[in-house]
């Protein structure tokens, strides 16, 4: 199962918010075209961790990174690294759907235009393609010019996924993507994640252990800023190696 190469290699990663150390010496590989779930109690550093993977923590005052995050072998924090390009290659979907207050189609074309695409037929093709990949096309194809804010929460989240797909990322980060969705929309997003992993490398942070168990190939358990355990999901959820993982999964703390 480990035949897929690592797309992202995290080596000796530390992160500080001022004097407070939020991540402690994390070493982890994210494998290509697999879903890696990161679980752990609130405050364990899981969101901090994935936000580092596309440099979303750059603007945190007092934030300081040590160690390296290699995307296809190049350090994303190197001085010559282009943060705009990194964020294109490593897309992100957030906890709360955050579509732009624009039309459905503009939500998707925006990133493309930012990249310099001007050709109308290219953009139209991209809009359709991205919406189809995000399993939203059938529901919105007749109202592409209507405001994205008129969509339901679940639809808005899928629109955000489509927006992310339009710029052809390699890796997609999901930060609690179903936290504000109902069970049906949650199921749709989970099915979508399984579909997307055919083409993309996916990392999902979730509070919902069952969700991690259902959708992921690998699971990382974090606690108090440390990576306690990383392994195949079916192993982590049945015979974890670490006592702390066992206790967390069986509800003894967290």
């Amino acid at each position, binding site marked *: 199962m480990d035949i897929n190469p690592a797309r992202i290699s995290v080596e000796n990663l530390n992160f500080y918010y001022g004097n407070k150390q939020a991540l402690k010496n994390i070493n982890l590989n994210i494998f290509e075209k697999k879903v890696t779930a990161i679980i752990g109690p609130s405050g364990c550093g899981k969101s901090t961790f994935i936000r580092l993977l596309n440099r979303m923590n750059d603007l945190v005052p007092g934030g300081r990174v040590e160690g390296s995050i290699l995307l296809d072998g190049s350090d994303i924090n190197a001085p010559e690294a282009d943060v705009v390009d990194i964020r294109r290659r490593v897309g992100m979907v957030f906890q709360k759907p955050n579509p732009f207050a624009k039309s459905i189609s503009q939500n998707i074309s925006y990133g493309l235009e930012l990249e310099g695409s001007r050709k109308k037929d290219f953009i139209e093709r991209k809009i359709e393609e991205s919406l189809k990949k995000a399993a939203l096309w059938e529901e919105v194809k007749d109202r592409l010019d209507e405001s994205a804010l008129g969509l339901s929460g679940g639809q808005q989240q899928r629109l955000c996924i489509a927006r992310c797909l339009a710029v052809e990322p390699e890796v997609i980060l999901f930060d609690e993507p179903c936290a504000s969705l109902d069970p049906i929309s949650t199921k749709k997003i989970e099915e979508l994640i399984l579909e997307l992993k055919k083409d993309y490398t996916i990392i999902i942070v979730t509070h919902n252990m*069952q969700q991690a168990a259902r959708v992921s190939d690998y699971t990382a358990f974090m606690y108090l800023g440390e990576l306690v355990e990383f392994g195949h999901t*079916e192993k982590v959820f*049945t015979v974890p190696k670490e006592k702390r993982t066992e206790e967390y999964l069986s509800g003894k703390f967290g």
Partner: protein
Amino acid sequence: MLDEKLIELKKEIVEYATLVEKMVKKSLEGLLLKDRQALLEVMQKDEPRVNAYEIDIDELCTNLIAQYQPRAKNLRIILMVLKMSNDLERMGDHAVNIVESALFLSERPDVKPLVDIPKMGELVTKMLSDGINSFVNEDAELAKSVCKSDNLVDDLKDKVFLELSRIMGQDPSTIERSLHLLRISGNLERIADLSTNLCEDVMFVVEGRVIKHHREEQENAR
């Protein structure tokens, strides 16, 4: 997600059950035709495969429960497959016991022409294959009919016992061979019992009813 995994699981348990069914058939044919080749195959090739299936299925079921928190019928299916897997492994062991005795007998003259043991064998293999079919097709009626055949097998076993006791009394030189025949009928009877278990589990999956230990009759009487 879980649905697809359950289809895989069912496919695997059906393959496993079919293997065990073949082992039982082969051990009986080997006994009747004194076919040592077939008998050795059961022991050396089939039995290790059975053990591998059992471990695989245990792991698969554990993973499904841990990863998907199955509920209602999905949960019943997984629980049943786990039990079925245990029962099938036992049946494989019983087939190997039959093979051991059949190998012993294959090099010696017959005590008597075999009549009731082949009848038992036919009934038992039918119970097992009907049990598997009832699981595949979720056919509770078929499962119920299998449970009824169990009594016929028990009667035949008693008959074999009485007949062989009589033969051993008359001619002590047949004792060792007769004991092997008794062992074979005993193992066939166990396979029938385990097939009955399997069918009780099928009814649990399909209808959610527990019919073990005549529970239904007890409840109706209440």
